[in-house]
């Protein structure tokens, strides 16, 4: 994975957020306060501003920029969480101009660890963590099996989707949705959804 791949990945993520803005907010409306899509879209637009013409080939530096842009523009719960995720990923890939699957695994691992430290969410709490962790596991699997990056990412995405869908029956224990208690079950978690995308 090269620096350009990372930037392109961000561009795709940003596009996804714009496209699914209303959808994510609706999901958040069901069990939260209906702003997740708006928040993420605002944030990723800010990210693209910052990246646009930033250049360089330090993946770590770029991911840190992404994280900081998110922290200072998203707000809500998702801002610090996504921000931390990318900042920690950047930390773990500082100075690297290319990442193989193993390197990617380490970076994502660091990112998720950061998210969990910040948000104290365990698997099964019906949060973005439930989409991120399976994706990480799939990535690690792929790396051990020596799969190539493209294949690894594909498997991670698939696992993330499963994790996301698996949040539907869960009862939220973190975030705004937890106020609903049992009533949060049966709804797909918006944060998990945005993570998968």
């Amino acid at each position, binding site marked *: 994975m090269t620096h350009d791949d990372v930037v392109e990945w961000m561009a795709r993520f940003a596009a996804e957020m714009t496209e699914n803005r209303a959808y994510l907010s609706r999901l958040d409306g069901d069990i939260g306060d209906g702003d997740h899509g*708006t928040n993420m879209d605002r944030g990723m637009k800010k990210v693209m501003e910052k990246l646009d013409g930033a250049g360089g080939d330090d993946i770590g530096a770029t991911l840190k920029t992404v994280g900081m842009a998110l922290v200072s523009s998203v*707000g809500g*719960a998702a*801002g610090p969480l996504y921000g931390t995720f990318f900042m920690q990923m950047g930390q773990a890939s500082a100075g690297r101009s290319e990442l193989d699957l193993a390197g990617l695994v380490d970076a994502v691992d660091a990112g998720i660890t950061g998210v969990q430290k910040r948000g104290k969410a365990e698997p099964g709490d019906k949060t973005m963590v439930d989409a991120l962790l399976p994706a990480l596991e799939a990535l690690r699997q792929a790396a051990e099996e020596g799969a190539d990056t493209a294949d690894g990412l594909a498997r991670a995405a698939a696992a993330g989707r499963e994790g996301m869908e698996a949040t539907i029956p869960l009862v939220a224990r973190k975030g705004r949705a937890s*106020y609903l208690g049992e009533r949060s079950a049966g709804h797909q978690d918006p944060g998990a959804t945005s993570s998968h995308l």
Partner: protein
Amino acid sequence: MKKLINSPDTVLRDELEGIAAAHGDRVRVSYEPAYIVRNDAPVQGKVGIVSGGGSGHEPMHGGYVGMGMLDAACPGEVFTSPTPDQMLEATKAVNGGAGVLHIVKNYTGDVMNFEMAAELAVGEDIEVAAVVTDDDVAVQDSLYTAGRRGVGVTVLAEKICGAAAEERRSLQEVADLCRRVNAEGRSMGMALTPCTTPAAGEPNFTLADDEMEIGIGIHGEPGRERVKVESAARVVERLAGTIVDDLPFAEGDEVLAFVNGMGGTPLMELYIVYNELHKYLEGRGIRIARNLVGSYITSLEMAGCSITLLRLDAELTRLWDAPVDTIALRWGGP
């Protein structure tokens, strides 16, 4: 959606410009990052107090910036908590060398953003203490939730801690006082109608013409139960009853009774609710020593009310009575 706005994307900026234009004699407004700070900040030797949260709850928090209350307020987008850079800059702007208190309402987003801000401020050698308010008895407080939401008590804590800070109490003392106010106060709200955020463009929930939501959150978070509309007396029984039994408040207690409007509630109705609350508490042997009636922590145009009770002692009463001079709360000589 019917609103007096120019565009959903500019509401926060337009509002802040309006506040700056109307109240330049009291506060300064920063736009990037967004925060409202009292004109005379930083006050040397005084603990600075910073609060913040999503917009749409006006006059909270910006309306409480001024002598005897907040030094700065950080407004997020509507119903979305502000970002760490806002709190960091506000903290720097109000740091008079005695440290800065962050008063944070207990919502995951607010807590995490303030946490990050505090970490950054400490990195710049500013002493920061954070107190999280969580007074909403409508939410079950358990390991399985993000905990109770911070609502009405936040306004009372900002007033009382502001008075203590003006007395040049230490950061430790003001923070402890804030925890005590939070521990002695409880709140619960209800809604007759939902509200619509400019970004969403449609009501955040729906209520039938004969229904009301008991235990509503200030972002329209669903409450405890949905029931048929009842008399003001019955509504007060539901809210005050739950509140009194929760702390619990006991016969002989002296309290500050705060009847709050959600934004679209006529003052007439708030006084009718206050009258019922007065009778209800009298019946339970609880004496209202101080009161606050009005729309002080709102939820856009939502119709409904919330009740907050704070158990008073001599010190809290004295600090409540102390002079305050902000846009929205004002009393006592300067």
